[in-house]
């Protein structure tokens, strides 16, 4: 371990520490609350709650992207794009975004924050 640490100069340590702290802060900063945000062409298509089970068809240039909300979870169920990246992502974790680029649809799962009524 010693010879590796010797390669770091004083300002290197500073850069590493400050940036790590910044990243840590960013990481912990939840945003959005308990919600699902569907965008099409960059515009908000639908903002809804993950508590309501349903399927939403979002029209895009290639056809409909099918978004499924079930039991408080969200996923892209079907997409007309060739790579199926957003479909393979599966159920979204809070804070995650699924992006179906060819069809210009993005589905965002808001990060969970404390529920002030129940907490």
């Amino acid at each position, binding site marked *: 371990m010693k010879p*590796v640490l010797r*390669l*770091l*100069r*004083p*300002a*290197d340590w*500073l*850069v*590493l520490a400050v*940036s*790590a702290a*910044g*990243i840590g802060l*960013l*990481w912990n900063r939840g*945003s*959005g609350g308990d919600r699902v*945000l569907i*965008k099409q*062409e*960059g*515009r908000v298509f639908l903002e809804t709650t993950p508590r309501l089970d349903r399927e939403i068809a979002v029209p895009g240039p290639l056809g409909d992207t099918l978004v499924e909300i079930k039991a408080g979870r969200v996923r892209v169920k079907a997409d007309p794009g060739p790579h199926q990246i957003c479909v393979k992502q599966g159920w979204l974790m809070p*804070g*995650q*975004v699924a*992006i179906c*680029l060819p069809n210009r649809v*993005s589905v*965002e799962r808001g*990060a969970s924050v404390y529920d002030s009524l129940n907490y």
Partner: protein
Amino acid sequence: MTPSTIELTITEEDRRIATLAAAAVGLTLVEAAIPLPLPGIKPGLANIVTLVVLYQFGWRAAVWVSLLRIVAGGLALGTFLTPTFVMSLSGGLSSLLVLGLLVRLPRRLFGPVGLSVLAAFAHIGAQLGVVSIWLMPGVNLVPLLALFLGAAWLSGLVNGLVVANLLEKKP
């Protein structure tokens, strides 16, 4: 054969830059074969070459090597002039810019690791800028920011340590 009217003199520096750029392209190709968890997160091994060139032959040579690598790598991977190429170019240019400024700082304080980490941030920053302005305007990238910056931090650190180690062996 008719002798060419254009006289192309190849200097020793040209050969050196070509050799180093070839090494960087090699690393880019190797890296492309590694499966990665998320598009945009990769170790950026070719930047090791850029940094070593920066320290040994100066900023101009580093710019040459880096741009040659981006163009040749783009051609080899079939991404030339695609959005992927634009991402790679924007990241490369911004990190070169940052490196050009940082390399003037006192060497006793700032080593390869600091430069590598800050250049990695500049790299991913420019790429996220391109994504949010041109490729996916309106998509909220903030939740992903910590992930991308964390990856840049780690790869910058590892690459910087490799560079520091290489420079120590061959001053």
